Every structure is written in structure tokens, then in C-alpha cells.
């Protein structure tokens, strides 16, 4: 004797149960195999390949360094600006410091912006 054919509602219920079971199974399977991919310099490589920002203002460091040096030289040597310094003070140390400091800050800025890689 042939088994009775399931009616439409039963068939739909069976399909839904099967789909739900597949859904749970596939979700569990995919999540079990979902792994985090470690960066390992990937983002650094991307950052090195992106084009530089066009409106770069780094050039401003050079005239400001020159202006600072000029001011320091004027404060130490030109008559109307001369300020009292210790006897053994060498003005060239001050000039050197004033000239170098902007470039030190520029280098620190580059390191922060990852334009210079230390490691």
C-alpha cells in the first residue's frame, strides 16, 4: 500500500524546517571557520601606496626656520636688539638650536603621519 502523499501545508512545513536546519548548520559552520586575518604590515603597505595629500604645507618649515634664525641672530648681535647674555654664552649655539628645532618637529610630524617608518 502506498504511503499517503503529504498535503501542501505539510510539505511547506517540511521545507521550512529543512531550510531553518540548513541555516543554523551553515551559520555555525561559517562562524567556526571565521578567522581574524592579522595585519602584519598590510595597512602600512596600503598607507605607503596611497597618493600624498596635495595641499601639503611642510614647505613652511624652511622659511620659519630661517626667520627664527635671523631673529635669534639679531637679538644677539644687532645693536638695537642686543639683549644681555652671559659672558661665556656662544650665540652660535642659540642660532644652531633655533635653526634645527623646526626640522626636529617636522621629523616628528613625519613619524606621526607614518611618512617615515622607524621599524
Amino acid at each position, binding site marked *: 500500500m502506498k504511503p499517503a502523499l503529504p498535503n501542501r501545508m505539510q510539505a511547506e512545513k517540511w521545507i521550512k524546517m*529543512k*531550510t531553518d*536546519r*540548513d*541555516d*543554523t*548548520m*551553515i*551559520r*555555525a*559552520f*561559517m*562562524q*567556526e*571557520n*571565521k*578567522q*581574524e*586575518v*592579522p*595585519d602584519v604590515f*598590510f*595597512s602600512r*603597505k*596600503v*598607507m605607503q*601606496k*596611497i*597618493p600624498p*595629500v*596635495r*595641499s601639503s604645507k611642510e614647505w613652511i618649515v624652511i622659511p620659519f626656520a630661517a626667520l627664527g634664525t635671523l631673529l635669534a641672530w639679531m637679538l644677539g648681535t644687532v645693536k638695537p636688539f642686543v639683549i644681555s647674555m652671559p659672558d661665556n654664552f656662544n650665540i652660535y649655539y642659540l642660532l644652531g638650536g633655533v635653526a634645527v628645532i623646526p626640522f626636529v618637529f617636522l621629523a616628528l610630524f613625519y613619524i*606621526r*603621519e*607614518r611618512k617615515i617608518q622607524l621599524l
Partner: protein
Amino acid sequence: MSKTEDLKWVSRVTLLGDTTAFDHLTRKYQSSIRRFFLNLTMGDTQLSDDLAQDTFIKAYLNLSSFQGLAGFSTWLFRIAYNVYYDAVRSRKITGDIDEQEVNRTYQAENDFSGAKLDVQQALMLLRKEERTAILLFYMEDKNHKEIAKIMDAPLGTIKTYILKGKEKMGKYLQENGYEAGIA
């Protein structure tokens, strides 16, 4: 992980030219994008990393066109999907890609190979579109609407891809004795 946070980083890049903000976004999404490509290319890390790099560079160059309606992640996956299909098309023209035979030697050496082998075998049963939709739905936790935006296809088509993919994968997993909770 919020959309608002992503918008903040995006606006810092577009308005201030702050590249460190883009670095932040790259670090945040590199894992999901590279995993997506790894699964699509059947574990080819070199190709995946190249495609992921292209994706992030394209995202950077087109960041001003991001409107924030769909979320940055969905927008990024849309670019990734286009990059992948462009690569498939270009490689098909030169005839040097066979998706069914991708990098079997690589899989033996790969850190992910032990766990990924079955995923990739299961994914190989699917058509490209079904595979993409299944990966986005089950692994990257995207909903149907987001997948429709990523794949630029009608919602009904996406539901069909997922349904067909689900049937094939479900059958494969059952035949191979997979039970949820037992790896």
C-alpha cells in the same frame, strides 16, 4: 564599531586630508576584506592581499563620493566586490585563471589551511554569485539589503542566491557528517 565613528574618520580624511584617519579605517576593516578575498580566491593570500590593497586605495581615492547612507563597511565591500570581478574578468581574458584549481600548493603551507579546507571545498560547490552572497551573509554578517547594495542586484535575486547556496552547502555539510558545535 559604530557608523558614526566611521563617519568621523571619513570626514577627517575628506575635510582635513588626515591620512592617519584613513590608516585607522584600514586597520579596522583589513581583516574582513582580506578574509572575504581569501575565501573568494580559495586561499590565495598573494592575490587576496593585492586585491585588498586595490580596494583600500580605490576607497581612499573615492572617499569624497561616500555619502554615509549605507555604512562604510557596506560601501567598502561594494568596492571589494567590483575589484574582485574586474580581476576575474581581466584574468579570464588572458586565460590564466581557473577558479576550480586555485592554489592547492598554497593551501598545504597556509596557516588557515587546516580550518579552511572544508569551507573552501564547500564554497567550490557554489556559483560565483552564490558564493559571494553566502560569504557576505554568513561570514561577514551582512543582511539581504546590504548584500543587494554590495552586489548591485535586486533583493529577490540575492535571496535566490542565498537560498540556492544554502541548499548546496547544507547538502554538502550533511553528507560529510557535519554537526553544529563539532568542528
